[in-house]
């Protein structure tokens, strides 16, 4: 186990290092941040001065060296625009994103598990067909469109839910969360549904396929012959065996939800870190973009690691080595 952990740690560092190189290279081709932060009336001398102040006049590999050096000290740089540490800016907005993702994940699981299992067990029932049709829509509709549609139906036409923003928050362990207040909870519903839709639809399809596959196997027939109840058959025998690939995909999905809640956050004016990324790209605020991508990469690696651990819990036959 220890050996495995060490191996994963080394892997993680290699991945993060590679990401940092790629991100840094790509960043240097995406527009000049200096022109974004000097006033439009700046003279050539002022522009040169700003460039030197940001260290952007040095060769790229020197800039990267400085970046790595700071990174090792836990310093991800200071935002050109906000003049505050990039890490602080991201961490400040992280609770809002995590909260949104948490509810989306909860919602996708709550809907996808029963629907997927049912559709897998009774593939020909009308309900299953409806679920499958619906899931196809869920996968193919773009989230910005769904979001706007939900806003116009539930907020503008029906007046049931607020259109945007995070609403009132209440602190938990000193961190403000919206779901703790009724007003805040009402604000979460629409963005969480929008964000969940794609994942939910995909999970349904995956669970259904897995269940159908497992149901054809011999041990299910034995169980049935043995007289195991339907409920137990599905939820403990079939589902457990169908779950390993589902967990993999689900883990990846959580990662992407955190990383790419961007669109949903922008539509619903949700003050999360995804919106920060969009704004930073628009202003070529390199330190924030780099810090964001590094953090997201770290999250992906971490989630993958957790997924691997979860495997062993679901299926003791899997050996971590």
């Amino acid at each position, binding site marked *: 186990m220890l050996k495995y952990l060490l191996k994963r740690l080394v892997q993680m560092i290699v991945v993060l290092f590679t990401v940092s190189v790629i991100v840094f290279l790509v960043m240097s081709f995406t527009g000049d941040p200096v*022109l974004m932060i000097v006033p439009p009336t700046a003279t050539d001398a002022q522009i040169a001065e700003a460039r030197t102040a940001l260290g952007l006049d040095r060769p790229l590999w020197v800039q990267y060296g400085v970046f790595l050096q700071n990174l090792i000290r836990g310093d991800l740089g200071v935002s050109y625009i906000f003049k505050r540490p990039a890490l602080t800016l991201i961490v400040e907005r992280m609770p809002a994103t995590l909260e949104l993702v948490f509810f989306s994940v909860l919602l996708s699981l709550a809907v996808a598990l029963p629907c997927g299992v049912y559709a897998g067990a009774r593939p020909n029932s009308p309900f299953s067909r409806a679920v499958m049709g619906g899931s196809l829509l869920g996968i193919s509709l773009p989230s910005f469109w769904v979001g706007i549609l939900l806003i116009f139906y539930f907020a503008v036409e029906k007046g049931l839910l607020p259109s945007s923003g995070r609403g009132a928050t209440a602190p938990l362990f000193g961190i403000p969360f919206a779901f703790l207040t009724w007003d805040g909870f009402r604000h979460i519903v629409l963005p969480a549904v929008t964000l969940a839709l794609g994942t939910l639809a995909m999970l349904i399809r995956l669970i259904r396929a897995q269940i159908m596959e497992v149901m054809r196997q011999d041990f299910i027939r034995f169980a049935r012959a043995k007289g195991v109840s339907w409920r137990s058959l599905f939820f403990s025998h079939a589902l457990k065996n169908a779950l390993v690939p589902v967990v993999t995909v689900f883990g990846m999905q959580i990662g992407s939800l955190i990383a790419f809640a961007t669109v949903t956050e922008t539509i619903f004016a949700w003050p999360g870190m995804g919106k920060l990324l969009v704004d930073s790209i628009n202003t070529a605020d390199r330190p924030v973009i780099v810090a964001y991508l590094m953090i997201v990469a770290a999250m992906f690696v971490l989630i993958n690691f957790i997924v691997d651990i979860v495997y062993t819990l679901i299926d003791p036959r899997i050996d971590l080595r």
Partner: protein
Amino acid sequence: MKRFAALFAVLALCLALAAPAAAEKSIVIGLASDALFMDPSQQDETITNTMGRYMYDGLLNNDALGVPRAALAESWTIGDDNLTWTFSLKKGVTFHDGSDFTAEDVAYTVEVCRTSLLKNFTASIDRVEVVDPYTVKIITKAPTAVLLESLAALRILPKAYRTKLGETAFNQAPVGTGPYVFVEWVKEDHISMKANEQYWGGSPKIKKVTFRPISNAATRTAALLTGEVDIIEDVPVRDVDKLKNTEGLSVVDRPSERLIYLHVDSHRPQGPGIIGLDKNPLADLRVRKALSLAINRDSIVKMIMNGNAYATNQMVLKGRRGYVEDMPAPKYDPEEAKKLLAEAGYPDGFKVYLDAPNGRYPNDGQVAQALASQLTKAGIQIELRLHPKTTFFDFVRPGDKSSLVMTGWSEPIDVGEMASVLFYTRGKNPAKGGSNRGHYANPGFDALVDEADGTADPGKRRVILEKAARMIVDDGGIVPLYFQQDLYGKKDAVVFEPRADKSILAYDMDVK
């Protein structure tokens, strides 16, 4: 149980917040983006400037038309040397933390802005002398007719408070003398302020202001439709009719300060953006005239901007120095354009790159495409190069890449400011011509700009600038296209007049 009680308390608080406060007027303003700073000396950007107008005052504050009016300065005189301005300050004004406003704060503010992104507004100032707590002398390097406009851009900071807190902490807990007092800023979610009952100009009618940054335009419209916000800025053109047709809502517009125009490579013998020729056709006045004649501005405004723009031949809005009352309206005459091209020796036209941004200004990419097709029809064959906004300004920096550039400029003061940045001959004066993307080089024009910058008399400056504006438009150094339109959506109950600077100022507004 304890947690339950806490939850209950929170719920009660929410209900209390949701309940309408008795007769206390409040307003929720939907902005297109969050403020970058609460400290107005850190950035020259629309929303940050708006925050500066809420919480702070300048020695002068701009009125709705952008004309500076006395604020913290009660009166001023200018010395015989045309350099020394003496301001007497209002007495009895206090900052929100209770400390007195004095001349020290003025000197401090100028010093802070000298090294910040607002340094262009302090460039003309040589030094500030504190005579006594309520008298301050500002000595300019040269006679400066735009000093009052520049001073209006500097929001007065509390010296003692800001030095005690430091820059970063001050930005989180800002204090000024303005009509509203900072309450809370939750980034990307909301900014709230309350009325400054001690405001020297009288206490505001609207007591509570909440700003909500909603960057997605459709969502912003939705928030107004649901009533969550009372007024929004930057209504997307496609939503104008919907808002107009909704009962209880209305749309207000006004010409924006932002001009969309073309830079023309007008003086260099060779143009880097000219394709397949070793000379620069645009250096010929007839060709530049043809360029303007080949553009159908009205059709661009009508077809692409849905009528939400104003075709023009001016550099600045009416009222600004350099607006020319009798400037002829832009003409569209493709036949005449072809004739002029033939006369200049290009009967079959020539090829040139047009560099334009895509996503920087409303519909900019489509406008550039329309321009390309109109110009090509007249014989100026355009190869369009559209750039994303983060790389555009880098690409079109004066140099060896472009000869024809479509871009925008928002001029808050007058033609002189614009001319010295965009059209002054490059390399003659290090402080001028920094963004002269068309490499316009006209000694007569430079002389006028210098003359305007050498007088302390705004009236004289106006006359000179009108001459300069007429000269460069006639010379085809700039091809003005249109002024954008600022669009606001609001509830009928909100009394609101749009301002030149685009700020939605609750102090000037009311809720019925």
